[in-house]
C-alpha cells in the first residue's frame, strides 16, 4: 500500500507521459519528415507535423537508391546497413570474447606482472578512439588494414570497458562454485566454458547491447579508414547526405535515420530483460 496512493500514481503517469512525449518528439518528427517530400520540407517554415503521402517512395529510395530530388544520386542505405551490422557484430562479439578471456585470467589466476597487466588494461577504460584517431590511423595503415573490416573494427575493440564489467561480475561469482567444479574434476578452461560463461549470460547480454550500439553508431573512424563505398556504414551515409553544401534531401536523411534506428532498437527490445538484469547484477 505504501507508494500506492492514487494521487501519486496519477502524478507519476503525468510526469512519465510528459517525459515520453518530450523524448519521443524528435523521433516523431523524424518519422513524419520521412513521409514528406524533399520539396515540402525545403519550403517548409516550420515543417508540418502531419504525415504526408511519400512514405513508400521515400523509403524505397532510401533503401535501394535512385535519383534524388536535387538531381543527385541517393546511395542505397541497404548495403550500408549491412556494413554497419557486420561491424557492430564484430565489435560487440570480438570485444566480449577477448574481454571474457582476459577478465578470467585477471580474476582467476595469479601470475607474475599481473598488477602491471591489470593497470595496462584498465588505463584504456575511458579513452575513446577519437582522441588518438590520427596516430591510430597511421598504425592501421601501417598494418595494411585500411578499408577492411579488421581496420574498421579492431581499433574500436581496444578498450577495457567490457573487461572491467566482467571482472566486476566474476568477483561476485561464489567461490564454492569454482570449488565444486574443481571437485568434479573440471580444469580452468572447462570451468570457464561450463560454468562461468553460462553464468555470465546476463552480463554478456548487457554488454552486447552496449557494444552493438557503440559499433553501429560509429562515424568518424569509418570516415577515415574506409575508402570504398561498399565499406561505408549507415551513420556515415547519413552524415554524407547532410554534409552537402546545398540543401539536403531531408526526407531521405530522415528515412535513413529511421532505418538506422531499427536494428539497434530491435536489439534493445530483444535483450531488454537481460540487459537491465545484467546491469544491476554486475554494476556496483
Amino acid at each position: 500500500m505504501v507508494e500506492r496512493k492514487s494521487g501519486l500514481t496519477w502524478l507519476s503517469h503525468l510526469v512519465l507521459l510528459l517525459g515520453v512525449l518530450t523524448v519521443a518528439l524528435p523521433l516523431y518528427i523524424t518519422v513524419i519528415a520521412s513521409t514528406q517530400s524533399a520539396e515540402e520540407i525545403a519550403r517548409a517554415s516550420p515543417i508540418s507535423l502531419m504525415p504526408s503521402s511519400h512514405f513508400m517512395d521515400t523509403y524505397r529510395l532510401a533503401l535501394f537508391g535512385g535519383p534524388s530530388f536535387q538531381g543527385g544520386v541517393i546511395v542505397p542505405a541497404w548495403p550500408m546497413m549491412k556494413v554497419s551490422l557486420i561491424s557492430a557484430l564484430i565489435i560487440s562479439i570480438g570485444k566480449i570474447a577477448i574481454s571474457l578471456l582476459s577478465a578470467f585470467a585477471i580474476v582467476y589466476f595469479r601470475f607474475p606482472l599481473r598488477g602491471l597487466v591489470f593497470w595496462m588494461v584498465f588505463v584504456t577504460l575511458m579513452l575513446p578512439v577519437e582522441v588518438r584517431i590520427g596516430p591510430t590511423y597511421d598504425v592501421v595503415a601501417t598494418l595494411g588494414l585500411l578499408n577492411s573490416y579488421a581496420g574498421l573494427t579492431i581499433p574500436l575493440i581496444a578498450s577495457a570497458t567490457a573487461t572491467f564489467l566482467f571482472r566486476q561480475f566474476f568477483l561476485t561469482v561464489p567461490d564454492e562454485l569454482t570449488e565444486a567444479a574443481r571437485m568434479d574434476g573440471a580444469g580452468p578452461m572447462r570451468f570457464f566454458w561450463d560454468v562461468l560463461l553460462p553464468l555470465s549470460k546476463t552480463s554478456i547480454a548487457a554488454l552486447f547491447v552496449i557494444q552493438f550500439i557503440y559499433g553501429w553508431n560509429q562515424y568518424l573512424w569509418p570516415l577515415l579508414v574506409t575508402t570504398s563505398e561498399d565499406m561505408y556504414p549507415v551513420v556515415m551515409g547519413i552524415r554524407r547526405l547532410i554534409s552537402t553544401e546545398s540543401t539536403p534531401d531531408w526526407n531521405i536523411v530522415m528515412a535513413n535515420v529511421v532505418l538506422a534506428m531499427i536494428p539497434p532498437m530491435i536489439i534493445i527490445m530483444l535483450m531488454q530483460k537481460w540487459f537491465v538484469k545484467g546491469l544491476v547484477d554486475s554494476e556496483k
Partner: protein
Amino acid sequence: ATEIIWWHAMSGALEGWVNDLAKNFNESQTEYKVVPVLKGSYDEAMTAAAAAFRAGNQPDILQVFEVGTATMMASKNTIMPVTEVMKKAGITFKPTDYVPAVIGYYTAPNGEVLSFPFNSSTTVLYYNKDAFKASGLDPEKPPVTWADMENVMTKLKASGSTCPYTTSWMSWVQLESFSAWHDTEFATLGNGMKGLNTRLAFNAPLQQRHIGNLEKWSKEGLFKYNGRASAATNSFVSGDCAMITGSSATYADVKRSGKFAFGISTLPYYQDVKGAPQNTVIGGASLWTMAGKPADHYKGVAQFFAYLSKPEVAAASHQRTGYLPVTIAAYELTDKSGFYKENPGTDVAVTQMIRKTTDKSRGIRLGNFVQIRTIIDEELEQVWSGKKSSKEALDTAVKRGNEQLERFEKANSK
C-alpha cells in the same frame, strides 16, 4: 583498365554530376577507369587524404577547396603539378585556354599550373522576385550598390519581411570577395600569393565601414545572420529571407527547391571606392594530382583532365552546376547555345570574373586558411550578437589570424 582513384567532396546534387563525369570518361576510352569516392565534406576529404598520404595510401586525384590551396602548395613532394602531369603524358596544355581569373589562382609564381581548376565558383547576390514585387520593388532592378541595398532592405522590412537580407560564407563574401571587389588588400603580399610572410590586412577602414554597416543593419533587422558556411541558404530557399549573397554554385539548388521567382545579380559595392567594382574572388575547388603514384596512373589523370577540358564537357558542367566555366571555349559555347538568355543571371558570375585582375584581386592564398576563416566567423559572431564592435572584432581576428600565418610560415619555410 588502370584504376584512377578520385577523392572528392561533392555530395548531394553534385555527387550525381561527378559520377556522370567519371562514367562518361570511362565509356569514352578503355585504358583507364576513374573511380570517384565521396569522402565527406571538403575538410574531411582533405584530412583523410593527408592521413592517407602519410600512410602511402593516397588517391590519384584529390579535390581540394580553395582555402586548402596554400597548404597543398606548401607541402613538399606531395603533389605533381598539372603542367608536369600533362607534359609527361605528352598532352598539350595551354593555360591560356582557361579562364584567367581561375587558372591564375592555381598557378605558382614560376608559372607552373599546380592544380586543375575543376569547380570554381564566385560570390553573387540572389534575390526573391516575388518578395520584391510584394514590397513594391521592381523585380527586374536588383540593388547594385550597398546604398541601393539599404533602401531595398528597408522597403522589404517595411512590408513585413523578417529577413530582408542574409549571407552565407561570411568571410568569403563579406571580406574576401568584398576586398577584391573593391580592389583592396585582404592580406599583404598580393593576398599571400607572393610569399609565406604575408599578414592579414582586413581591418582597414573600408572593411571596418562595411562590417560596421552590417552590424547596424543587423541591429535594425535588415540583415540577419544565419550561420556559418552555407547554412543560410535554407532560409533563402524557404522564402524566409528575401536576398542572400553566396556561391554561384548554389544556383541549381535554389532553382530546384525555391517555390518563387528569383534573380541573380552582382555583389553590391560602395560607389565611392576607387576601382570598385573590380572582380570577385573564386571559391570552390580544384583537382590535385597526388605524388607517389605509378607512372601509368599519371597518364590516366592527364587524359581525364584533358577530357574535362573539352569544350562540350566543360560547358555541360558549367550549365549543370552553376560553377564557372573552366575554359574560355566552354563559356563561348554556352553563350552561343543561348543558355544565358534562357537562364537569366547565370552569366553574372562569369562576367564578374572575366576581368583583368590586379594584385589585390587575383585571389587569396593563405596558410591555415581554414582556421583563419573560423576565427573570422567566431569574431564576427561577437559583432552580430552585440558583444564586440566591428573594429574590435576585426582587429582581434587579424591578430589571431596572423598567429596562424606565422605558424604556417614557420612550419613550411624550411
